[in-house]
């Protein structure tokens, strides 16, 4: 395996991990969980956090350059002082890897699935995707999360990959991130200085970028207890059944007054149709207080489509994705309603 040079730190307790994270924060330190994202990124010459954002140019909006291959604009006009300064900054960082990697594999306390007396679910950051997939209680009560786990990568990826890594990596198509938004997940983020709680829906700010600060680490995620007559569903629309990143991913959580009765609350999360997973707020306005009937569900799915901001890329066009958001949202709302015991 050809990897850049770095030192690996192996803490034996979470407190030791927090201390290491703050001690080496300025030198460049990255957390290693399952490594299924990080070790791939390290092998490429660039790791996103080390790249400075650009100020924008004629071809790109500000902050859009993630690597030197993204934009060759300086070749055409390298006379501008600010351009040259940016070029140096970008080039300097090409081979800038973290000096330290902190591997969490010994921290058993970060791995596990627990349900407390209030029936809230807590999943430790180092819990593998396979653990989630095989958990009966998650499949029964937080179904969308189990379905997200089912669809992630391949069995080998699921055996290594963790939910903490999937969420921290902050990709718009991350298969446990999207359901976690719909299910109202809240992250426990700790550092040497203390701890805070961040709802999953406000955690990511851009692809690969989050509200996490230097020295911080996710220790777990908590999901609220599902009320009576609530249900959820996740569907990943992709070209293949395994080893695939989604074109569009939709997770729906819905609560009804009674089976077939009016909607009391709904959360729809959309993946791969924006820079981060999106909570489609306008669906709430359309559906809350209404019966989950054909016409209302169709309106809600249209509202979700309005909230999506897809782009064209090699996996699909913005036009296709936009249509699919509507279709998949429609189906997932129906499925979630059926799971509560209603018929649509």
């Amino acid at each position, binding site marked *: *395996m050809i990897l850049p040079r770095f030192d*690996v730190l*192996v803490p034996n307790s979470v407190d030791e991990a927090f201390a290491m994270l703050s001690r080496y924060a300025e030198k460049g330190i990255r957390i*290693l969980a*399952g*490594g*299924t994202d990080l*070790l*791939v990124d390290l*092998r490429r010459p660039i790791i996103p956090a080390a790249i400075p954002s650009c100020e924008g140019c004629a071809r790109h909006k500000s902050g859009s350059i993630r690597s030197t291959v993204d934009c060759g604009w300086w070749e055409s006009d390298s006379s501008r002082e600010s351009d040259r300064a940016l070029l140096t900054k970008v080039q300097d960082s090409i081979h800038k890897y973290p000096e330290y990697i902190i*591997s969490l*594999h010994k921290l058993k306390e970060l791995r596990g699935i627990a349900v407390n007396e209030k029936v809230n679910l807590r999943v430790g950051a180092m819990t593998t995707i*396979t653990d989630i997939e095989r958990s009966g209680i998650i499949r029964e009560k937080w179904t969308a999360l189990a379905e997200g786990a089912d669809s992630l*990568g*391949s*069995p*080998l*990826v699921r*055996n*290594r990959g963790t939910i903490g890594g999937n969420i921290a990596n902050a990709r718009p198509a991350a298969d446990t991130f999207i359901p976690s938004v719909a299910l109202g997940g809240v992250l426990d983020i700790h550092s040497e200085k203390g701890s805070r709680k961040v709802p999953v829906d406000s955690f990511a700010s851009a692809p690969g970028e989050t509200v996490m600060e230097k020295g911080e680490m996710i220790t777990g995620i908590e999901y609220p207890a599902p009320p009576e007559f609530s249900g959820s569903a996740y569907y990943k629309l992709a070209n293949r*059944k*395994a*080893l695939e990143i989604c074109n569009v991913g939709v997770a729906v959580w819905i609560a009804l007054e009674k089976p077939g009765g009016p909607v009391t609350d709904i959360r729809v999360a959309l993946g791969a149709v924006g820079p981060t997973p999106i909570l489609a707020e306008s669906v709430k306005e359309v559906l809350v207080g209404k019966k989950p009937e054909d016409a209302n569900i169709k309106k809600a799915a249209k509202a979700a489509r309005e909230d999506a901001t897809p782009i064209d890329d090699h996996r699909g066009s913005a036009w296709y994705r936009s249509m699919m958001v509507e279709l998949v949202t429609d189906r997932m709302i129906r499925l979630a309603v059926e799971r509560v015991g209603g018929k649509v």
Partner: protein
Amino acid sequence: MVREDLGLTGSKKGCGIGDCGACTMLVNGVATFSCMMLAIQADGCVVETVESLAENGKLNKLQQSFVDLGAIQCGYCTPGMLMTATELLRRNPHPSEKEIRLALSGNLCRCTGYQKIVDAIKAVAGE
């Protein structure tokens, strides 16, 4: 480390980024792509490679079944396939065809078209 320092060249390196499964080993009994694991992460774990499967110098049942049913062409994917199948059969001695295919979905084979590999595993699973 496993191939060059320990000389166990059974496990293959294919993609190096978790896509192909050619490098699969069992770590504490769990099928793991070794290309995405640092040696230090295996500290204190039981690691099984394809070399551990043969019993008393003879191919075990699963390996023999791969040979008998023609589940090997170039053989590059075979060590990984065998390790993934070994984990599956330990966890679930009588898997259905669907379960076999699902378990193998992270192991790529460019030669056999998978059917014979599935057949070989089924034969051992007593279906």
